[in-house]
């Protein structure tokens, strides 16, 4: 059968332009990097080009950009509170980048960049790095109060502080794993359910029930669009919750 049934095959990196080797590792401009560049291009198109003429009554593209901006602005204000406006560029860029990459990944035959854990982990490290650097810059050693929650009895304190430190280290991991696992699992499920259709059609009389996985894969596609949007939102919300620790340490 000519149909490719391997559900992992779609996540393979393909080098487009090779720059040579460092050790045994090939340094190349992959299709993943190409997708990231085109995502940046799309975001620039939505935000810069669409709002260029700054009309009071916004056009279609401009109102879309304004809706995104207002949405992220209110999310950030709710979860990070006072003084969070300075992180608006970071959170807005992160949200748009993840959203556009997720949505690009939903196009048939396209590559889902966020299904690679190294990409999501780099984004998560960027967030946590900002939290640590800004926290120490703004509060000095007072930032360490983030590890000491209030209202804990004294005898429990050493245990809770140790748990809080491990919990802080687990944050970039959970941020990265959540996005990566959702996208990866969704694309694999989609591929498997869609792969049942030609497999059943090729199996003679079993072809009668082939509309069943077809309907299921349509439903999973709709679900994946929901997940793509939701995970970008969750990423931005959690990033702003973590940033609120840097703004107001000591809960």
């Amino acid at each position, binding site marked *: 059968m000519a149909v490719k049934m391997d559900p992992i095959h779609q996540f393979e990196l393909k080098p487009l332009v090779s720059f040579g080797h460092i050790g045994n590792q090939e340094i190349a401009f992959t299709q993943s990097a190409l997708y990231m560049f085109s995502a940046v291009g799309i975001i620039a198109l939505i935000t810069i080009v669409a709002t260029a003429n700054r009309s009071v009554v916004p056009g279609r593209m401009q109102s879309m950009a304004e809706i995104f901006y207002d949405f992220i602005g209110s999310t950030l204000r709710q979860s990070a*509170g006072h003084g969070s406006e300075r992180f608006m560029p970071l959170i807005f860029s992160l949200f748009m980048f993840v959203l556009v990459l997720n949505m690009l990944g939903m196009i048939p035959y396209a590559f889902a960049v966020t299904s690679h854990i190294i990409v999501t982990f780099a984004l998560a490290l960027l967030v946590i790095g900002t939290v640590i650097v800004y926290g120490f810059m703004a509060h000095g050693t007072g930032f360490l109060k983030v590890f000491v929650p209030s209202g804990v009895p004294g005898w429990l304190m050493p245990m809770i502080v140790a*748990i809080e430190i*491990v919990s802080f*280290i*687990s944050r970039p*991991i*959970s941020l990265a794993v959540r996005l990566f696992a959702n996208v990866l699992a969704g694309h694999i499920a989609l591929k498997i359910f869609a792969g049942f259709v030609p497999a059943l059609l090729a199996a003679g009389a079993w072809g009668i029930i082939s509309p069943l996985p077809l309907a299921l894969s349509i439903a999973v596609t709709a679900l994946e669009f929901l997940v793509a949007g939701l995970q970008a939102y969750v990423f931005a919300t959690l990033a702003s919750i973590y940033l609120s620790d840097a703004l107001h340490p000591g809960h």
Partner: protein
Amino acid sequence: MRLSTEFIAGVIAGGILGWMFDHYLGTKPWGMIVLLMLGFATGIYNVMRVSGSLPRAPTKNRDP
């Protein structure tokens, strides 16, 4: 999905920390044992915090 990643992240963070302790301080296997258990506790703590079963500390610094 949200809760399970919180839990798994806690255990993984504990495991990585424990491995690093052992690797750099030569305390094999005690760092791994202690920090993996601490990571387990952290995972449960994370899940409790996310699901809201911990009593929320008063957020006095947080302006609306």
